């Protein structure tokens, strides 16, 4: 393994760790809400044993809240599972919508923490690319992370995926202040090395206020 591959490998592990930590935090939040609802049920039973009548509407609300959290946890775990399997094959055909959905789900908490709104424009029709899904997710996350640093809190980022002659193009748009001094350098060696292994190209376009990632179909499978 050469130095470039080492960098990509370490960066990949760091990305995986960051996402896993965020997912575990989200699951802990879900468990905390279920735990409090179960505790409230116990409190209600305790009071009922002492003669206070039970209000069925209250129980219905509690049950609805638990169901909401189970749906939330199910979605988180489904995305976690797809993310975990994104390392399975170095070259596989995957729908761009699916990659985008995983990215949006994984980054939801980070987006919320930064006070940014991520607006996703779905591609017209199905669009499949042959690529290394984990590597592409890592690259798109690095672009999103940069985009969030550029726009700052309270602003929206548009994410759009579209077909190209030889693959797909992801556009992170509405990036105001791309030339501002406080913006971190981009792309760094890390993004450049990663894009090379994916046969991808990163284009930073301040005039269009966007970052574009062009991903070519892999033909080395």
């Amino acid at each position: 393994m050469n130095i470039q591959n080492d960098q990509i490998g370490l960066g990949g592990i760091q990305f995986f760790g960051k996402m896993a930590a965020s997912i575990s935090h989200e699951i802990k939040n879900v468990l905390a809400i279920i735990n409090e609802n179960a505790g409230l049920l116990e409190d209600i039973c305790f009071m009922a044993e002492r003669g206070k009548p039970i209000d069925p509407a209250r129980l219905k609300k509690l049950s609805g809240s638990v169901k909401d959290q189970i749906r939330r946890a199910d979605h988180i775990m489904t995305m976690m599972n797809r993310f975990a399997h994104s390392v399975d094959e170095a070259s596989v055909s995957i729908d761009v919508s699916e990659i985008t959905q995983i990215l949006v789900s994984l980054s939801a908490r980070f987006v919320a923490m930064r006070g940014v709104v991520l607006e996703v424009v779905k591609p017209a029709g199905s669009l499949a690319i042959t690529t290394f899904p984990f590597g592409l997710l890592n690259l798109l996350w690095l672009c999103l992370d940069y985009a969030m640093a550029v726009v700052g809190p309270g602003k929206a980022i548009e994410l759009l995926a579209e077909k190209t002659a030889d693959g797909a193009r992801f556009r992170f748009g509405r990036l105001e202040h791309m030339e501002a001094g406080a913006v971190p350098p981009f792309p760094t060696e890390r993004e450049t090395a990663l894009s090379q292994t994916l046969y991808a190209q990163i284009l930073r376009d301040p005039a269009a206020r966007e970052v574009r990632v062009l991903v070519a179909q892999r033909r080395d499978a």
Partner: protein
Amino acid sequence: MTEKVLIVDDEKGFLDVLAERMQSRGMEVTTATSAKEALQKMEAQTFDAIVLDLMMPEMGGIEALQHIKEKNPDSEVILLTGQPSVSKGVEAMKLGASDFLIKPADINELTEKIKLAKAHRMILVEKKTAKKVKDILKTKGW
């Protein structure tokens, strides 16, 4: 005497139910879904304990803790969070957090920590009051 508690968490579903359960245990509970809202509520009244989430949008728990301690150094802050890193936990304790609990937490444990926080705060306030009285007596020479 009832404990006056401020709970700060961006998970409204968690906040509302925890508040209801603590109220049924005789506490006077105020809630805030952001650190900014919590700081505003601290302007209007004092609390025996502040239960603070570490991971919140806009202003995180660590930054909120710094602001709380700047505003009122005697504040008793109990951190209640999902899955903290060791470094964050250490940083929070260095900044003056009184205690730490990991979600999902046991309400009896949390209640106990709030009572302890209140007792600690009362001792601090009493000490400060005694010092003030002593200083006045010294300077006025009555």
